[in-house]
Structure formats: structure tokens, C-alpha cells
């Protein structure tokens, strides 16, 4: 028997959503991720269908990867946080690369990303925009690409 088939018919009067929300406990995100993962596994939905909800394939893959690599809810949440931080920083770094005329692919882009991130890490600056501005002031020679003219 396929796992996709419920073993007993669902009672139409049974509030499945209420039961699921109650079971979600302190970690509804984990519950939701497991539900999505199982729906995909059993062919009850597709990445394309989830994209219609605004969940991109990259985001979906990140959640599934976090699930696969985690043994505990704490690890899962830490992995999700890391993915979110990476997405956040990646978006900013693409913006900075565009400003400096560096295509967001290839070796020069990787060098630019790493230089800004290493500067931020070394100086304990968690905002990459601030780290970038500090680098422009202190060590612009470490930044590949062309520094755009100041708007001031």
C-alpha cells in the first residue's frame, strides 16, 4: 500500500487543521517543514505548486537540506537561521557587486564577496553595508571592481 494513501478514511467532521496546529507545539515551523517535506516525498505536491505560494525552489531546497542535516529541532532552527543569514547577505552582496560593475558570477565576484565578509567577520560588523562603507574608507584597494562616485 502506498504511504500516500491514508489507512483509514478521514472523518469529514474531524478538524485535521486544529489537530495539526495543536500538535505543532513550540515549533510550528518545524512541523510545517516536515509536512511540506512529506507532501513532496509522497507526491502530494510539487516544487512548482509551492512556487505558486511564493516559495522558490532555492528556499524549498534550503529547508529540505536543513531537515536532512538536523537531528534535533534546535539544529534545524540553527540551520534555518544560517540559511536565512546567507540569503540576506547574498542579496546585499549582489547589490554591492552591481554597484561596482562586477558581474555576480565568477572569480572576481567571489573575491569581492569574501573580502567584504572577511572584513565584517574580523571587525565583528554584522551589517555588510556598514562593513562595505568602512572598507571604502579604510582599505578600498581590497575591493575588486570600480568604486562608484559618492552621492554626497
Amino acid at each position, binding site marked *: 500500500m502506498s504511504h500516500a494513501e491514508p489507512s483509514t478514511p478521514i472523518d469529514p467532521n474531524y478538524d485535521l487543521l486544529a489537530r495539526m496546529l495543536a500538535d505543532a507545539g513550540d515549533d510550528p515551523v518545524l512541523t510545517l517543514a516536515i509536512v511540506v517535506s512529506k507532501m513532496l516525498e509522497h507526491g502530494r505536491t510539487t516544487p512548482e505548486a509551492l512556487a505558486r505560494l511564493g516559495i522558490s525552489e532555492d528556499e524549498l531546497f534550503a529547508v529540505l537540506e536543513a531537515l536532512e542535516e538536523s537531528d534535533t529541532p534546535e539544529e534545524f532552527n*540553527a540551520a534555518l537561521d544560517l540559511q*536565512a543569514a546567507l540569503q540576506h547577505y547574498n542579496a546585499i552582496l549582489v547589490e554591492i557587486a552591481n554597484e561596482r560593475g562586477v558581474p555576480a558570477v565568477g572569480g572576481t565576484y567571489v573575491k569581492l564577496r569574501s573580502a567584504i565578509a572577511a572584513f565584517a567577520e574580523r571587525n565583528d560588523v554584522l551589517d555588510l553595508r556598514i562593513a562595505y562603507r568602512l572598507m571604502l574608507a579604510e582599505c578600498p584597494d581590497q575591493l575588486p571592481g570600480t568604486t562608484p562616485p559618492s552621492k554626497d
Partner: protein
Amino acid sequence: MHTRSRLVARTRRPGTISSMTPEARKHALAMIAREYVLTRREELDTLGTPLVLRPATPEEANLSRLHQIAADVFRLLPDDVVESVPPLAESATPPSIGGVGDDSGLLLWVVDLRAPDGAPWVGFLCGTLYTEHEAGMTPEARSTTINNLNLNDAAAAWVSMEVAGERLMVRLCSAAHPVDEGLESWSELAAYMVAVAVAAGEEEGSAGPASTYLELLHISQRGDDDGYSETSLCFAASAFRDSFSEDLARTVLLDDHLDGVEVLVPFFAAGEVRALLTAFEAVSDEDSPTGVGGVKIFGRLYDNLPVPEAHRWARAFNGDDDVPDDDNDTWTQTTAWLFGSWQALEVSPGMASVFYKGFVPNPLRRHVSDVELVRGCVREVWVSANRYRLRKEFDSTVGGVDVPR
């Protein structure tokens, strides 16, 4: 509905994700910072590549040179220490001279080696034999015993070796050096190793000749004020970092610690290789294996492992005969002057951390520059971590192979 849509849109914009913890942000920054280094690894590979030496062929071998080298080493030691050393006989395979003491339980071997480019090297190996531990021991019990011995000994590596047809536990030190670069400084190091090995076999508190010699040596150098210090280690770590290209140097992190410095070097996806170097002053320190000050080194494998596997990896890193590897017939040189060993320590039920605990005594500061000290310590940890990584990757590809082989 309109308000709700705006809220959803806001939470989906990159840069306004509110759930990121500072730890996650720092981790993400570290990952991005390493990306560039990982795309061009030649320099780091140079740092982490061990020198694999092969024994000379019988045609290449120069046994008279080995006798001369051994004589030069012994000349640096008092006569009563040399008398404890077993007589050295020539051996054709591999080309070497060596011997095992009948009463002293001392093993000494000088081996004719060749570098990959054919340059002549000399290998020097001395160990103290312990026969009483072996009787009727299962392999698992032997593995645990060897690990426990390593945990309690900061100055040498305990390994299982076949000596004269018998499997014995040996407390081992070894060093190799290129013959063409001059052996004067290395001979002093080798003499020091011999004295330490002889002293290890002397009855504790008996004030035997080697123990007395070492004590006098340490006293004579204690007044020189040229031992390692927190300041010298920090300077050396900075110089080590600056020896890399600018791009790479930015990713080598230094972290000040009490009496020392921790060096973090990027290492593949696993993060970084860490070596913690702390200076300490001497006699009162119960961790000092020779009663003299120096530098303690701690390094760690990046994964924790099930205890039996951790034991096997620690023994493999120590060059234990019982855990053969692909280079079983070669002499792998990482850091000649580093005393110490890899060990497994249980950190949670059933799981152990594999770590390196080493020691460089102050008297060796005359032979090893401070920067080379830092580089050598990082190399020791790097080489072993890389060996583990390669094996793990091979196993994940092929599957079902014992680790280590």
C-alpha cells in the same frame, strides 16, 4: 486583506528576515569569507602537505654516513648516557643502522631516506620498549591501553610496533632532516631525543645519567631567559599569518588566549584547522614532561567520532603499525621537533574527540624559529585532518570500507 498582503511582502524581502541570530550571521559571514580561499588553495596545500620520504635502495644507501651521523649525535651526550644506548648494527632492509637494548628496553634506529626529488635525508627514531603491557591483550584492550598511555604522556607518542619479531608497545620520538642542509642543529635535537628516551627508561627518582644530564641542561638554560613566551608566540603567529599572500592572510585568524595564541586556518568545508599554542614556565607545572618550560600545543580533529573509531584514528595519526595506511613503507615527516601524540577523549556517551597534545621544550628554541614553530604545529593538525577528510570522502564515494584502512 490589503494590510496582510503588505506584511507578507515585507517578511519575504531579503534583509528584513528577523529570525537571524547573531551566531547565524557570524557563521554565514565566516562561510562567505572562506569561499575565495577555497577556490585557490595552492598555498594552503603547501602548508598541509606532509613530506613523504622513502627508504633508500640498497644501491643508494650510504651506511658509513649513517655511522658518522650517529657518532656525531652521541658525541653531544655524556659518556654514561651513551653507554645506555644499544650497540648499532647495520641492516640492509631498509638501509639503516640500529639496535634494541637487551636490558635498557631502548630502541634506536638511524635510517637512510630519500626525498621525492632524490635528495638524501636521515631519519632518526628512538623509543622506549614496554613488554609487560602486551601479554594476552585483545586488540581492543591494546587500543584502549595505548590511548590511555598517550593521554597521560605529553612528550611522546605511544604506538604498537613489531620489534625483533615481537609486538610491543613503544614510547616513540622520531625526526628526519635533509643531509645536504647540514646536520649540526639537528644532531643536537637528536641527542636531546636520545637523552629523553633513555631518561624515560630510568627508574623514577633514581637520578640516572640521562635524567641528571637533562636536569643540568634545563638548569643551564633556565637562566638564559630565551624561552617561549606569550609575546613571542603572538609575534610568531602574526608573522606566520603574514607569510601568506594578502588574500589568504585575511582569512587566517589569530585569537589571543591566556599565555598564548590560537591560530585558525581555513580548511575545506569543515571550517578551519585550529592550533592552540600556550607558553608555560617550568618545573612546577605538572604537565611539563621533562620538568622544563616550553610551549604546549593543542589541535583537534573537526569531527567527534564513536570511541573505537576515534581510537583507531588517533593511533593511525601516531603511525601505529597496527593501523596500516597507504604509506606504510614510507617515512612521513610532518614536524620533526614536536613531541606529542594524537589521543581520543570521550566527550559524550560513546563519542570521543580526537585531539593532538604536543610539547616543544624551551631548549629546542635554538633549533626552531618561532614562526616555524607555529607553522609546524598547524601543519601537524592540518595533515592529520586532511588525511581523515580524504579517507572520509573516499568512503562516502565507495562505501563500506573500514576507516582507517
